[in-house]
């Protein structure tokens, strides 16, 4: 490089001073842009949001992060935390990469950056790592989504959960099954449980079976079928179901295999009173409802669910639609609830002091949320006593978007009739 080009590329002292001076003024102007004597500049309150934004759960994680962000935007647009002079909430973003140790490290970083509360993280294993960290660092941690019972069993002082527990999910399934029998006046005598053999499928169906047995309901499990995740053909399994002649089928499946299962049930003309998912994804997603059309009708599934008629859901959904053109789903709706619950607690705490926040969180009684469930209240373990599932059923409707309907509990129901027993698959 010769001297000339070097000269051109380098910055001399004067230029440097000019530039840095200008930059300094720029920064100062942007920070103190509004003359500070006009109003008492409210402090910002930092909340650390940790979601699995990259890695195997990236798509869901991006949705839950967006849920967190949109709720914070809403709170800030409505005057922030009024009891603290309209203090705005700043959401610090962390990415767990779906790994517990990364989640922990990110949580530690956000605490260092000033987070007074942690929020997240969609997965139970990451939640546990962060929960212990929260206890170590004495920072309140509000879980928007994470179901495993054990997380709150440790009696941690700083840990709160909005989502339903895995035990609550199974209990909900049994409760709705009983109600279904009462309402319809039909009692299935035999059943088949068919589940995918991964951790979720096995855990969920084991829990449900155990509860069903101890419930004293006159139902006999005539066959239990387990198949591996990612299976491409279920004809042999469905032949077994057909041979067992059950009245009702309890599937715990994943999106891919529910399509195969349902098509095979149709092909082999397995006669059933109905299909009841104790907590099974794959039977109500928009693509499934669209592709399966009439075959998807009348399936009942017990799930944590959105409450579309709530004003909070409508606000959140509008914002979500605007941001990504999709409806606010259950996970993102719970994520949307997180900052709302925190803001409500901060409003009552009037301070970012740990004790004040913890006290306010424990006294939470928050109704204006977008999911099916009672008011958010935390018990001594930190679990939400208002959390509940809904029973949903896919029902005929010319509008695809409106086919999935809440049928139970009554106060949230979008349709007052439950179709059970359902017409056979090939008679629709």
């Amino acid at each position, binding site marked *: 490089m010769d001297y000339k080009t070097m000269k051109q590329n380098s910055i001399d002292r004067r230029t440097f001073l000019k530039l840095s001076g200008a930059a300094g003024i720029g920064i100062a102007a942007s920070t103190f842009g509004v003359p500070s004597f006009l109003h008492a500049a409210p402090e910002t309150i930092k909340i650390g949001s940790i979601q699995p*934004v*990259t890695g195997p759960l*990236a798509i869901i994680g991006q949705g839950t992060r967006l849920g967190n962000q949109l709720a914070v935007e809403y709170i800030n647009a409505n005057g922030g935390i009024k009891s603290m002079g309209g203090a705005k909430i700043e959401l610090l*973003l*962390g*990415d767990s*990469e779906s*790994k*517990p*140790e*990364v989640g*922990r*490290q*990110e949580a*530690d*970083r956000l*605490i*260092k950056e000033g987070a007074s509360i942690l929020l997240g993280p969609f997965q*139970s*294993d990451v939640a*546990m*790592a962060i929960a*212990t960290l929260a*206890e*170590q*660092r004495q920072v309140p941690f509000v879980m928007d989504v994470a179901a*495993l019972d*054990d*997380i709150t*069993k*440790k009696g*941690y002082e700083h840990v709160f959960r909005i989502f339903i527990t895995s035990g609550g999910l199974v209990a909900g399934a049994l409760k709705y099954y009983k109600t279904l029998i009462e309402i319809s006046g039909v009692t299935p005598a035999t059943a088949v449980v068919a589940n995918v053999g*991964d*951790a979720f499928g*096995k*855990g969920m169906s084991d829990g449900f079976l155990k509860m069903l047995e101890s419930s004293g309901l006159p139902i006999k499990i005539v066959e239990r079928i387990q198949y591996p995740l990612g299976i491409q053909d279920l004809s042999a399994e469905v032949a077994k179901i057909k041979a067992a002649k059950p009245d009702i089928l309890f599937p715990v499946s994943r999106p891919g295999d529910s399509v195969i299962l349902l098509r095979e049930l149709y092909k082999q003309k397995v006669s059933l009173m109905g299909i009841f998912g104790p907590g099974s994804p794959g039977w109500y997603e928009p693509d499934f409802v669209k592709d399966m059309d009439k075959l998807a009708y009348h399936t009942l599934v017990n799930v944590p669910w959105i409450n579309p008629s709530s004003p909070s859901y409508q606000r959140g959904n509008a914002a979500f639609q605007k941001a990504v053109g999709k409806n606010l789903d259950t996970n993102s709706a719970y994520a949307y609830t997180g900052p709302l619950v925190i803001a409500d607690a901060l409003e009552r705490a009037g301070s970012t002091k740990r004790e004040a926040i913890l006290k306010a969180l424990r006294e939470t009684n928050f109704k204006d949320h977008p999911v099916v469930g009672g008011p958010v209240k935390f018990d001594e373990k930190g679990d939400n006593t208002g959390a509940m599932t809904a029973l949903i059923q896919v029902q005929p409707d010319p509008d695809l978007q409106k086919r999935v309907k809440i049928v139970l509990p009554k106060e949230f129901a979008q349709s007052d009739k439950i179709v059970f027993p359902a017409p056979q698959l090939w008679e629709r």
Partner: protein
Amino acid sequence: MNRTYILLGLILAVLLVLPLMLSKYMLGIFIMMYYYAYLGQSWNVLTGYTGHISLGHALYVGIGAYTSVFLAQRYGLSPWIGMFAGGVLASLIGLFLGFLGFRFGLRGVYFVILTIAFAEITRLIVSHIDALGSFTGIFLDFNPSFKNFQFKGNIPYYYISLGFMVMSLIVVRILETSKAGRFMVAIREDEEAAKALGVNTFKYNMFAIAVSAFMTSLGGCFYANYIFYLHPNTMFGMSLNIELILRPIVGGLGTLFGPVVGSFILTPLSEVSRAYFAKGGMEGLHLVIYGIITILVVLFMPKGIIVYLKKWLKPILSKE
């Protein structure tokens, strides 16, 4: 040589006083650096020195973690003791795997498959044992005390992990200069020739895998009491298998300081870039950068960064 020791002593002195000036978060990065350097070093004993590629070292991490946690939860045994029980168990399983592999002369890819198979089989078995938390995993109680290997702040973890790493360096240094270590290198360079020269290759292969498994499993105990959660998929899974070998490969396989150098480069790189890009709303980009750097190192520095580092340091270190 003296200068090398002085430099290392200086580095160690700096590392020892670091907690005085760093935040808990920064200490967390260092803890992960030491942890992965330690695991990489343990893996290096087998793969770096004897040349038998193990892609299933997560197996030993998992055994160490699960054994110490199980003994602590069931029998109240302090993890300080439990981790050695885990080490012995890991060694035994390593010896069994080694017996199958070395006795029947499995080489290259076939040995790799054997190690993966052991890790995967163990993962599936643990996933179905209720006493080990099956597929929901084990959540550890948080009872901070020295006996329980659990602490409130990051500083104790910092010193323990630093101690682990330094110990592993000392062990490998002793090994490297010992007869056994030289035999292991001979096996790596040419197993048949070593055998022809009278090296009992089976014996030294078994020795290497036992030491490697033992050391790796101690790391598992540390992880368990740092993260407080064990899941079969994270403890025995493929991603840990790969995570574990990246650092020694990037740093320099079969060298004393390779795993340490690799970890000191890769771990902060992934941490800092994640934090940096997350703020700009470009999450995921850090993984791309991490991947590109790893590829570049493997392509252009196949012997690891340590070779270049030594070249740079030569003028300083060689002046007697």
